[in-house]
């Protein structure tokens, strides 16, 4: 799956998803649970703000010295016998990985969850090279067998599906005969995937944090799938976004603590696995060959700009879990594998304004995301900066906003038009008004009132009320 999902425009996507009642219920429920768990986990620590300040400082220092730490990382990986490939573009990364696959004559590849391999659309390249590619994270596996349904959340990709839908997919694609109980579904996936791990030629993983001082990579899961993906096949390929790095084990530890608490409210997830190079001499499990692919794919263009803080992101989705806009429109509306506030900032930077100029407007600027972020990315300020860039530098403000601003400019510039406008508004809107609420508004109000009500204009204008008040007759 490439970063971009589907061809429908933003308005069409939102329209479809707003009517998906199950998805909206599932998202709201999940948001509440994850949000509560995160707050409890933070409260338990007692000094969460200090933790956030530490997380921010570590991420900022690492980004400021990114070339130094990547140099150190690559030296240490090579010292332990691993191979490092620096890929400026998605195509360079995919070509390198395809060459390894061909050289190894690989037929079957197991993968653990990785956003960056989705971003570069690696699976399509591997399938075109004749490989069977199997996602092993349960959520990703469900989506993959359901004809590549796109993910809707960066931590819980199948959040939009209910268990009955999953049962039906299992019945159709895997010959499953049991019920929709999550335990039974998971057990079936366990049995099916065990065979795949044991017979795969190559394991591919993402990377939560690379550790510069030792040339290690850190994988964070609850399922343990990344451990089997890296322990059983003879070749391991790890793909990382170039910013996913820390100086030493000590910073890895702090960021993992922030990640697991912020993502799922756990002190640690079941498996935090730190891997260094291929297997050591005398090891039986673990790969004989290890490749680390470090991907830029547009990230360096963000460095040194006002948007640099977005590279501090540790992909916990805490911002997604508190976002009121995400709650209503769901992950698929963003049209990108990166959804929610992080997606609204990152997708236009990696994928361009042509495809994603609406996303920075899909926000109420309530700043809940900024407050939730464990590494203190000023997300809502970055959304505002996007809007500024879109209007000032790109001249790409959405048409509706341009028209509205033009009309308001015309109306507000002349006191005659302003008075006229505010005077006629109540009666002009009377046909649409019901108990002081507008539920089916015309023109610019249409999109708003399709999904919620708008207060009707006051019958008495402020100016009139003020004049009366001055005379001593106002309410």
């Amino acid at each position, binding site marked *: 799956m490439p970063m971009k999902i589907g061809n429908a425009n933003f308005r069409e996507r939102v329209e479809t998803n707003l009517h998906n009642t199950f998805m909206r219920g599932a998202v709201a429920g999940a948001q509440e649970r994850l949000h509560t768990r995160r707050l409890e986990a933070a409260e338990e620590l007692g000094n969460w703000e200090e933790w956030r300040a530490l997380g921010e400082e570590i991420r900022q220092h690492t980004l400021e010295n990114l070339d130094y730490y990547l*140099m150190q990382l690559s030296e240490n990986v090579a010292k332990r016998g691993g191979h490092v490939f620096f890929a400026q573009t998605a195509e360079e990364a995919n070509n390198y990985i395809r060459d390894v696959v061909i050289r190894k004559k690989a037929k079957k590849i197991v993968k653990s969850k990785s956003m960056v391999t989705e971003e570069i659309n690696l699976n399509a390249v591997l399938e075109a090279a004749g490989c069977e590619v199997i996602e092993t994270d349960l959520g990703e596996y469900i989506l993959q067998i359901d004809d590549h349904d796109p993910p809707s959340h960066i931590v819980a990709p199948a959040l939009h599906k209910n268990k009955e839908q999953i049962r039906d997919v299992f019945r159709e694609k895997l010959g499953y005969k049991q019920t929709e109980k999550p335990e039974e579904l998971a057990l079936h*996936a366990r049995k099916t995937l065990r065979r795949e791990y044991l017979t795969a030629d190559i394991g591919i993983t993402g990377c939560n944090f690379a550790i510069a001082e030792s040339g290690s990579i850190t994988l964070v899961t609850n399922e*343990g799938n990344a451990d089997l993906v890296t322990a059983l096949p003879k070749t391991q390929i790890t793909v990382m976004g170039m910013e996913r790095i820390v100086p030493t084990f000590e910073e890895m530890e702090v960021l993992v603590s922030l990640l697991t608490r912020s993502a799922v409210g756990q002190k640690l997830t079941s498996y935090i*696995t730190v891997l260094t190079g291929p297997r050591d*001499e005398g090891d*039986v499990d673990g790969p004989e060959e290890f490749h680390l692919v470090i991907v830029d794919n547009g990230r360096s263009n963000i460095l040194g700009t006002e948007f640099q803080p977005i590279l501090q992101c540790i992909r916990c989705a805490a911002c997604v879990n508190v976002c009121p806009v995400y709650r209503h429109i769901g992950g698929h509306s963003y049209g990108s594998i990166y959804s929610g506030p992080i997606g609204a900032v990152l997708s236009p930077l990696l994928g361009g304004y042509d495809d994603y100029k609406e996303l920075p407007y899909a926000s109420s600027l309530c700043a809940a995301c900024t407050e939730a972020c464990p590494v203190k990315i000023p997300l809502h300020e970055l959304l505002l900066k996007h809007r500024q860039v879109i209007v000032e530098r790109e001249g790409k403000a959405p048409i509706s906003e341009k028209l509205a601003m033009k009309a308001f400019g015309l109306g507000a510039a002349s006191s005659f038009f302003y008075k006229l406008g505010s005077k006629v508004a109540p009666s002009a809107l009377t046909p649409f008004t019901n108990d002081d609420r507008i539920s089916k508004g015309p023109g610019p109000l249409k999109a708003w009132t399709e999904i919620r009500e708008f207060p009707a204009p006051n019958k008495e204008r402020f100016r009139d009320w003020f004049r009366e008040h001055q005379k001593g007759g106002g309410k």
Partner: protein
Amino acid sequence: MMQTGTIHNRDKFLQTIANRLGRKQRTAGVSRPNWRHQPQWTVFQGYSQDELLEALKAQCPRIHTECVETTSVKLKETLKEVVTMHGGGPVVTWDDPRFDEYGLTHLLRDEWPKEHIDVHVWDASAGRKNIDFAEKANVGITFSDITLAESGTVVLFSGNGKGRTVSFLPKTYIAIVAKSTIVPRMTQAAAYIHEQIEKGNLVPSCVNFITGPSNSADIEMNLVVGVHGPMKATYIVVVDR
């Protein structure tokens, strides 16, 4: 000495980063700052081993893990009971001198086989057969190298007969935890590993921080315990070690 790996396309890549950051490439001379906030060290600060053990026990139910206390004299009996309770063999273990030090060799070599409980001790020379056995095993047993009280985590270092999959492939995972290995949290384990690296020692190819059995909440956010890895986990704490 192992063969050095290859590095491709590095110079241009790092130069691009330096250019974007508006300065010359940094290849040396960067040191970690003294972080202004260090809250990680305050968790369970000054706790005794007894208090750390209590904290570990309190965390175990939250990670769906059974915690059993025993002494080195009773360890063999406790281990037998726990394995029986989980349905018996086949059993796979690390090839680890601690099994001998803790008086378990007789159990692994004689007692269990006599009771028709198959035991496989990891054997590097047997290659892939180790994995075949572990995949069919009901129980995998390892020692914990470092134990984290706050999260209820056992830390395992791979290498020298300590196969990675012993803790992943069997249905039940049992960790033997010496009380003296318990530290407040991941901070102390990370600091220890960092210190080893500073001294020039190589970090093992796999360091596992394991916190209870495998689980997933990918289906309607319902927690399912036991997905790819073990379905059950038990820690046996040896209080006089």
